[in-house]
């Protein structure tokens, strides 16, 4: 378990800033990539803590969620404030706030700073992306700003590792000899109207008379944010009178001509203007910047759309094209390892555990790595050069129709290749609600693991009818329908999730569009590496355990000695053939075939007697309305680690050996002739369609569920996903089977 709290004997500093200021790059530059990730108590907000590297003192850095303002409107946003004011239980209050600013957008970034400045903590200002200052024709006098504020200002380019040592030294220095905290007269708050200060005094007085001791900061927020986080907190703690008190205060402010909440932003920006006057100079040019000129094309009605489609095409073609070779390589290694073990160990439980459980399980995890690496390589490049925000900008209108924003497009699109990298890509979505909805519908997109199941069922059971002179085939149409079914179902699901599980404030989509720049190789390397490691370590261990469990359910409690003997016999025969190329080869081949058949029969008998087989018989009444027999039920249950496993399991159950793929004539034939005890065929078009619909909508993929668990830091959401998707799949399969049975 990752530790949720910082180390006891370490000094603690907090890193805070607006989104897109390079905060995570700076965090990585300060702490290396060994962050401890956990959850803040009570909220599903990720807490990232790292140890400052290369310093003599032990210093922990807390990476706070990116925010534009300290005005806490939700529990998530309140995390930053609560950490900085030391109000999180079991969490040490940070001694220093490191405020990271985008040096190319100092004015807007200083807004958050003006609020943090007033919390009374020692502050270090970091001007990150300093390399942009010169390239964008800006002049920033950091020394002058430092003098005016009375706090250290350090200039860095975190993605190029510049200024990091100086920042580390500054952190150490400020911890050793704290600088004088600024006087209240220096705050932007001092520029608030007198009427407001009067109301603050009164409300403080009243709250103190009620036995409360809120900070000045909290009083400010109570008065300014209508129905804000602190008001809800105080109401919940039993002091419901607070609402009337605040309403009264506000109406008094209104009559005094002090417009809430406008006066705050107005005062703060006026304070900022005064602060940066002469220190930050922007060269106003008449002509549009190069970035604006690029945007003129990329947001163009046709050119912009075309370019977007082209980028997406390249990304997804690359995933399918380039991932194929390393994936084949991994599978080759897997089969090499299996045959290596088979050569060393005779048939038995240990060999089965190593080959089917461990090598199969680990391989099932590793095989995702090429896809994840390629997708995140593109995401990192697109993010770092600035196009990612434009892609969200271009797709926003389309995504709002399902209640999401443009930022959900890429994660959902990626999920058509594989939901695992798709879910990991939802990290780019800042709104937690949008992120959760996207993450929960991502597994509905038809991933590449579903395709083999569709191909098998379609080629075995859908008639080869052709229409329009052979250009349109029924099989192709069914395949296309299955591929799009998940996405179609996802629309109402997203709407329902948004309405019932993540309701609330209208989603705002105020998104900053950074100017374009060349991507930095260091940043790209780090991002890809971080995702790969986190996937292997956290999802991998759990997927591995699931594979072992399923293996055990298939293996036990049957007596395998007879099967092992048959397997040993078969392998002897096979090795004889490969050694002696005699004329009696055909005879021996017949012998091998017979031995193989015997092995297959024994294997399928053992499956029927295994725990999984017992489960299969037990669930037959439940799967019968879907048109399935117990064998299909078993195959579906056993495919929990990964959907495509169903083909191998069906192969085993139908006594064909487990090395079946979707194009195996043998398996297709066996399925076509399979019969119920009363002689009716098991598989009909209705059954095949019902299986496909089930697989289109079900959550039979432990990798996806473990990734959801990792990304949400809770078991609640993977369980939720599994339950809702399995329910949908069951209902879908049932409807399909019943409709087609009546129709045919």
């Amino acid at each position, binding site marked *: 378990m990752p530790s949720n709290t910082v180390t006891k004997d370490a000094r603690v500093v907090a890193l805070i800033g607006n989104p897109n200021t390079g905060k995570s790059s700076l965090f990585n530059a300060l702490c290396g990539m060994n962050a401890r990730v956990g959850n803040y108590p009570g909220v599903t907000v990720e807490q990232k803590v790292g140890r400052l590297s290369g310093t003599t003192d032990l210093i922990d850095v807390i990476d706070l969620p990116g925010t*534009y*303002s300290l*005005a806490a*409107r939700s529990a998530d946003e309140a995390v930053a404030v609560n950490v900085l004011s030391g109000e999180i239980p079991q969490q040490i209050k940070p001694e220093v706030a490191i405020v990271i600013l985008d040096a*190319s*957008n100092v*004015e*807007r970034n200083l*807004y958050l700073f003006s609020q943090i400045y007033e919390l009374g903590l020692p502050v270090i200002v970091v001007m990150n992306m300093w390399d942009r200052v010169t390239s964008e024709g800006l002049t920033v006098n950091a020394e002058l700003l430092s003098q005016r504020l009375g706090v250290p200002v350090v200039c860095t380019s975190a993605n190029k590792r510049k200024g990091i040592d100086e920042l580390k030294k500054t952190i150490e220095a400020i911890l050793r000899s704290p600088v004088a905290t600024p006087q209240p007269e220096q705050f932007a708050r001092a520029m608030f109207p007198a009427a407001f200060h009067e109301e603050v005094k009164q409300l403080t007085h009243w709250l103190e008379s009620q036995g409360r001791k809120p900070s000045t900061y909290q009083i400010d927020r109570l008065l300014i*944010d*209508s129905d804000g986080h602190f008001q809800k907190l105080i109401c919940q703690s039993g002091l419901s009178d607070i609402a009337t008190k605040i309403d009264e205060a506000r109406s008094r402010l209104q009559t005094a001509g002090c*417009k*809430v*909440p*406008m006066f705050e*932003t*107005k005062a703060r*920006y006026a304070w900022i203007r005064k602060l940066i006057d002469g220190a930050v100079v*922007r060269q106003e040019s008449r002509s549009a910047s190069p*970035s*604006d000129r690029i*945007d*003129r094309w990329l*947001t*163009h*009605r*046709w050119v*912009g*759309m075309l370019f*977007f489609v082209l980028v997406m095409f390249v990304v997804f073609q690359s995933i399918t094209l380039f991932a194929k070779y390393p994936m084949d390589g991994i599978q080759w290694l897997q089969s090499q390892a299996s045959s290596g073990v088979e050569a060393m160990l005779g048939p038995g439980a240990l060999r089965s555990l190593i080959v089917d459980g461990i090598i199969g399980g680990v391989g099932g995890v590793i095989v995702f790595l090429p896809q994840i690496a390629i997708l995140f390589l593109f995401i990192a490049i697109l993010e770092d050069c600035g196009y990612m*925000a434009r892609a969200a*900008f*271009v797709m*926003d*209108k*389309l995504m*709002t129709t399902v209640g999401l924003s443009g930022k959900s497009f890429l994660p959902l699109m990626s999920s058509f290749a594989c939901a695992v990298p798709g879910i990991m890509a939802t990290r780019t979505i800042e709104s937690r609600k949008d992120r959760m909805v996207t993450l929960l519908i991502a597994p509905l997109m038809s991933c590449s693991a579903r395709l083999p199941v569709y191909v098998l069922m379609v080629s075995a059971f859908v008639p080869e009818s052709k229409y329009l002179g052979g250009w349109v085939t029924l099989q192709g149409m069914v395949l296309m329908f299955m591929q799009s079914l998940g996405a179609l179902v996802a629309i109402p699901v997203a709407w329902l999730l948004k309405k019932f599980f993540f309701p609330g*404030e*209208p989603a*705002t*989509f*105020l*998104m*900053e*569009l*950074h*100017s374009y720049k060349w991507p930095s190789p260091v940043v790209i390397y780090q991002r890809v590496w971080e995702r790969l490691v986190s996937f292997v370590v956290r999802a991998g261990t759990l997927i591995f355990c699931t594979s072992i469990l399923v293996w055990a359910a298939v293996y036990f409690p049957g007596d395998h000695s007879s099967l092992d003997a048959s397997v040993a016999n078969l392998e002897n025969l096979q090795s004889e053939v490969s050694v002696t190329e005699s004329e009696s080869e055909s005879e021996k081949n017949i012998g091998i075939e017979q031995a193989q058949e015997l092995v297959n029969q024994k294997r399928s008998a053992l499956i029927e007697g295994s725990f999984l087989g017992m489960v299969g018989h037990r669930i037959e009444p439940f799967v019968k309305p879907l048109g399935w027999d117990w064998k299909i039920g078993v195959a579906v249950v056993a495919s929990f680690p990964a959907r495509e496993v169903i083909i191998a399991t069906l192969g085993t159950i139908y006594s064909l050996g487990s090395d079946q793929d979707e194009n195996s004539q043998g398996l297709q034939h066996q399925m076509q002739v399979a019969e119920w005890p009363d002689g009716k065929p098991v598989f009909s078009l209705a059954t095949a369609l019902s299986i496909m619909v089930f697989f289109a909508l079900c959550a039979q993929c432990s990798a996806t569920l473990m990734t959801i668990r990792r990304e949400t830091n809770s078991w609640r959401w993977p369980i939720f996903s599994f339950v809702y998707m399995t329910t949908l799949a069951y209902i879908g399969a049932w409807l399909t089977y019943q409709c087609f049975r009546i129709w045919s």
Partner: protein
Amino acid sequence: MSLPKISLDELQRGESAVIAEIIGDDVVASRLMEMGLIEDEPIAMVGRAPMGDPTEYAVRGYRISLRKSESVRVLVRKVP
């Protein structure tokens, strides 16, 4: 100051205006103001997304994307 107030959404590509008012006191209004959209601040329209929404604006030296539902909250006076 004789020019009429129009919605920010009505600005065409390349047109500039000065913000006159932000309507409302809810989250959307405060977010807009926190992002620096305040009375008397100049703002320019950079371009619209291919599907007509959202729109990119230039304000306080940076570029921001606003949906129509957000930009109608901002009243501006065109700069002639």
